[in-house]
């Protein structure tokens, strides 16, 4: 055990068993999986992506590239979880990834021996021929050999949530700068959200031993956190990563709600994805330590020095028995001093700087470099190059510190470019990179605790002032204010062996040199050529070193070389969290018609029409395919009476003194002249002259119309009316509202339709009182209803509208009456057949590229008034014989089949695009006529009645000779309609 006897922020009364690769270990509450493994002397935790090299824990935070684990077993397993952020819980089952057959013996380690061949660009150069092999052979094999964890393949049953929050100030990060900013802003009266990815707020303060205001810094942090927690205007969000910065002060945030629980409370989501709208934000996300690259620096036991300090101070876990430190700055010495204080043996501190001095009692080698490591599956010895030659030092853990990089990531999400700060040898956020966001603390390059506290408080004061509030008096706590002393040192030159930069994607300094040699020199090219920084950690511990090496090779400075672009998310976010409530039925909610229950009782087969579920046909005993049901329903309607739920049609109630004028302007034809008690068919155009929608409007009063739209365009038409009323003609006094949901509406169609309504309605309905295209208020018992004598089937028909909550009852009453006269329900298929027989159009015909003239309705564009689209529709080329016009088609050869979308050609022409004459839009078998029929568009079609052409479908290999005819196939004079 490497657990220190005392110290750390652990609850030692709560011992927690967990497993790693099947072996049971014990940790304490407060441990991460990484700290618990280190405390149990587990150093080998994974295999690398490409070369399958043994890897250990590198960091203590979300930047971890190596220690990725599979958590859980069975269908709900989660791959690629960073052991450094995963809290342990009773029964946690973790396993290592990318090894076969086992972690300590991995057959794919052979890749490492082949490494001379597997350098950057290897796959691009090697697996090029034959082309077909890539998909079938190369890629699957490469993917199996490489890679990270595996998905279970089962659907993700976990529950994810999405949520929205609003605040005056979002503070990102809860270290000294973040705490001070939150406290100052909260005391100044702002609504504050303080978010941190860690489960314990306090940031780096939890990993340090120095004092703030005379108290241990982690105790000071805990005190401020509880002060904040007690304030009503503060929301603390631990375990919450701010993943992205977006326009208008919007931030994405991922809260890990129950990843740390053995059993989550009922209904608790696994994760919640937040969208936080913040008037201002302070980035206090701290800094990330960067390594120094040297040969074989990826051996388990080689870690970041700050992480070593964190494991010792916060988790009371010594990552080694004899720890060495390799540093180019003073912070490495702080680690050494803390370890000495904790009783951990320091084997040596190797400082690249010649003049470095020890700050505690440990052996120091100055002006030296680590040039190699050895040890199977874990570090046992390092080679140190000094002026006196190579020295070997026995050590089982090497902490490396190359300096600290401010966490500028979020400030780059809106294309901001970080700026170089020479004194700390690091990039800091550019001013104003994210509107409304300012940075503080080490995220701003202010590395001392004092500076962090001060810049945090200052940032909050600036926000308060900005938002018109007075800054409260805040006394800055006393804290260390050590300057950054660093001598940039990126990688060890002139030593044998590969130096790792990106541990997750297995990119070495040699790969960067190769990129340079092959002229992939701009950093964005280098990134893509070598894959440096393209793994799930986005190169948080590797980008800087890579671009520093490229800068060296090209002889340019680091700021001249520039950085690659950090993009959201800051750390990986599960698609499940982003798509919370956007899957399954939440993705497409269901809209049910009022007669849905009855339709299901009657064996309806449903079709989705937008979000609506509409019966396609009703299967009766003995019917084995839809055509039998459909044909029966058509014959039934034409012989007796049929019922159809048409509630889904858009219904818009329009009122006001200018309602008639308004309708005249949105419809191509006249509605102001429509008598009260009458319905008229209307055509709506877009301003570009194309047909937008058709429907009917009924006039119930001088200033009151009820408009119907097609089901498909209901929303579009409503928006169009809003546009016309608000943007085009706000001077018109007209109001309207969608009443689609308020009225259940049923078509009653067929020669016996009036007979069916007889006795149901209180009113007497005759051809005289209620002729074709009449409308009016009627009553059914005590229920006020509306009746329209309109027809989409060509039959004598009505549409009966009742308040929606009577829909089911009326449907059942209609059903009973229809059954008594040999009638019944018909679905969308039969409805479609009957409208094609009548040549009535749907959006199959008015598909957005046809004009009123194309569909033979040119005369419906009134010459007496203006309307939307009128002027455009009269532009040259939008009417006349050169255009494709709506026609009917009937088969004349042995092949009778029509196919939707198939194109039409002259009989003697080749079926090529040049000869195209038109296309089929709708087709069906007409039981009324006994053969197939179709609607379509044909060039100059109205003048070509009787001409025989051919339909050719080259995809489905069908050729049908057909005759161009009137699109009205049945009851051309409309006798059936009128009674």
């Amino acid at each position, binding site marked *: 055990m490497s657990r220190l006897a005392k110290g750390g922020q652990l609850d030692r009364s709560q011992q927690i068993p967990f497993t790693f690769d099947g072996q049971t270990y014990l940790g304490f509450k407060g441990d991460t999986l990484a700290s618990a493994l280190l405390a149990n002397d587990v150093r080998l935790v994974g295999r690398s992506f490409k070369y399958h090299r043994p890897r250990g824990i590198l960091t203590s935070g979300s930047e971890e590239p190596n220690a990725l684990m599979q958590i859980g077993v069975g269908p709900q397993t989660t791959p690629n979880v960073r052991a450094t952020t995963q809290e342990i819980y009773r029964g946690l089952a973790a396993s290592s990834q990318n090894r076969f057959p086992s972690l300590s013996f991995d057959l794919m380690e052979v890749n490492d021996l082949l490494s001379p061949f597997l350098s950057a660009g290897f796959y691009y150069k090697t697996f090029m021929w034959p082309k077909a092999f890539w998909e079938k052979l190369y890629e699957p094999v490469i993917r199996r050999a490489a890679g990270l964890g595996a998905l279970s393949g089962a659907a993700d049953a976990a529950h994810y949530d999405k949520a*929205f929050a609003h605040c005056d100030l979002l503070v990102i990060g809860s270290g000294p700068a973040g705490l001070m900013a939150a406290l100052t802003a909260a005391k100044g009266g702002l609504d504050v959200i303080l978010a941190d990815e860690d489960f314990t707020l306090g940031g780096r303060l939890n990993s340090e031993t120095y004092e703030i205001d005379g108290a241990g810094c982690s105790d000071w942090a805990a005190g401020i956190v509880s002060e904040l927690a007690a304030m009503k205007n503060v929301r603390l969000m631990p375990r919450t990563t701010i993943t992205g910065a*977006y*326009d*208008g*002060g*919007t931030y994405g945030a991922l809260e890990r709600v129950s990843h740390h629980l053995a059993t989550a409370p009922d209904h608790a989501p696994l994760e919640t994805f937040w*969208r936080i*709208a913040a008037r201002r934000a302070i980035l206090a996300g701290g800094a990330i330590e960067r390594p120094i690259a040297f040969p074989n620096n990826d051996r388990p036991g080689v870690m970041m020095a700050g992480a070593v300090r964190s494991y010792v101070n916060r988790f009371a876990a010594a990552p080694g028995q004899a720890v060495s430190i390799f540093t180019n700055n003073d912070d490495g010495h702080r680690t050494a001093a803390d370890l000495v204080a904790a009783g951990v043996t320091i084997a040596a501190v190797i400082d690249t700087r010649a003049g470095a001095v020890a700050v505690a009692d440990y052996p120091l080698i100055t002006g030296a470099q680590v040039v190699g490591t050895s040890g199977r599956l874990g570090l046992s010895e390092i080679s140190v190059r000094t002026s006196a030659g190579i020295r070997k030092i026995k050590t089982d853990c090497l902490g490396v510190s190359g300096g600290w990089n401010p966490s500028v990531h979020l400030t780059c999400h809106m294309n901001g470019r970080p700026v170089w700060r020479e004194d700390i040898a690091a990039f800091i956020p550019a001013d104003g990179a994210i*509107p409304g966001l300012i940075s503080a603390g080490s995220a701003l390059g202010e590395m001392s605790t004092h500076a962090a506290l001060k810049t945090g408080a200052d940032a909050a004061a600036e926000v308060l002032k900005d938002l018109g509030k007075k800054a409260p008096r805040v006394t800055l706590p006393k804290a260390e204010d050590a300057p950054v002393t660093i001598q940039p040192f990126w990688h060890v030159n002139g030593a044998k062996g590969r130096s790792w930069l990106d541990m997750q994607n297995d990119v070495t300094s040699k790969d960067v040199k190769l990129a340079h040699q092959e002229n992939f020199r701009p950093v964005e090219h280098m990134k893509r050529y070598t894959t440096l920084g393209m793994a799930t950690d986005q190169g948080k511990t590797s980008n800087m070193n890579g671009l520093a090496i490229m800068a060296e090779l090209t002889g340019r400075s680091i700021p001249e070389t520039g950085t690659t672009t950090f993009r959201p998310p800051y750390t990986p976010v599960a698609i499940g969290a982003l798509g919370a409530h956007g899957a399954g039925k939440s993705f497409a909610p269901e809209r049910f018609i009022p007669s849905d229950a009855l339709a299901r009782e009657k064996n309806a087969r449903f079709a989705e029409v937008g979000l609506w579920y509409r019966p396609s046909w009703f299967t009766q005993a003995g019917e084995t395919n839809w055509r039998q049901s459909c044909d029966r329903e058509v014959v039934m309607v034409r012989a007796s009476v049929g019922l159809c739920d048409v509630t889904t049609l858009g219904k818009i109630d329009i009122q006001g003194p200018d309602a008639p004028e308004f309708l005249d302007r949105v419809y191509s034809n006249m509605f102001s002249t429509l008598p009260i008690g009458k319905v008229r068919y209307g055509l709506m155009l877009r*301003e*570009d002259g194309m047909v937008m929608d058709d429907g009917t409007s009924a006039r119930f009063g001088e200033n009151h119309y009820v408009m119907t739209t097609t089901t498909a365009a209901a929303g579009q038409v409503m*928006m169009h009316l*809003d*546009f016309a009323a*608000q*943007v*085009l003609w*706000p001077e018109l006094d007209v109001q309207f509202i969608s009443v689609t949901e308020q009225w259940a509406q049923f078509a009653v169609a067929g020669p016996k339709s009036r007979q069916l309504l007889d006795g149901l309605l209180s009113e007497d309905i005759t051809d005289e009182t209620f002729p074709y295209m009449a409308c009016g208020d009627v009553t059914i018992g005590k229920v006020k209803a509306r009746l329209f004598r309109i027809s989409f089937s060509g039959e004598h028909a009505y549409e009966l509208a009742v308040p929606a909550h009577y829909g089911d009852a009326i449907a059942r009453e209609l059903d009973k009456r229809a059954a008594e006269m040999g009638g019944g329900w018909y679905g969308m298929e039969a409805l479609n057949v009957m409208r094609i027989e009548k040549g009535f159009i749907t959006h199959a015909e008015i598909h957005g590229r046809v004009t009123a003239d194309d569909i033979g309705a040119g005369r419906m564009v009134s010459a007496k008034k*203006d309307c939307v689209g*009128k*002027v*455009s529709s*009269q*532009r040259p080329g939008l009417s006349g014989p050169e255009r494709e016009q709506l026609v009917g088609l009937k088969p004349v050869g042995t092949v009778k089949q029509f196919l939707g979308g198939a194109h039409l050609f002259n009989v003697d022409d080749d079926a090529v695009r040049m000869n195209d004459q038109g296309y089929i839009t709708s087709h069906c078998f007409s039981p009324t006529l006994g053969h197939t029929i179709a609607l379509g568009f044909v060039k100059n079609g109205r003048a070509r009645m009787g001409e025989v052409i051919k339909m050719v479908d080259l995809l489905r290999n069908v050729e049908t000779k057909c005759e161009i005819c009137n699109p009205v196939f049945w009851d051309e004079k409309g006798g059936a309609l009128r009674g």
Partner: protein
Amino acid sequence: MRINCPICGERDSREFHYRGSAKLLDRPAPDAGAEAFYDYVYIRENPTGLNRELWFHDSGCRSWIVAERNVTTHEFFKTELAVDAKRGAK
């Protein structure tokens, strides 16, 4: 993006439908001729920087809104109801 709806206050842009240039406010007179309508329907400036445009608050109050937005930075400067913009123009 967040859009300040004159009726509902500041809301997430996902509540809105974008309709493009506010030029649509200036529909030509019915007798202005085909050229004028061609220009109205099809011809648009393509500015970098400030753009005056129409948004529809369809998941909110169903107001058409005229917004001034910097299309480079997505910063909104001014929003008003189309009804008011139209009346103001007269």
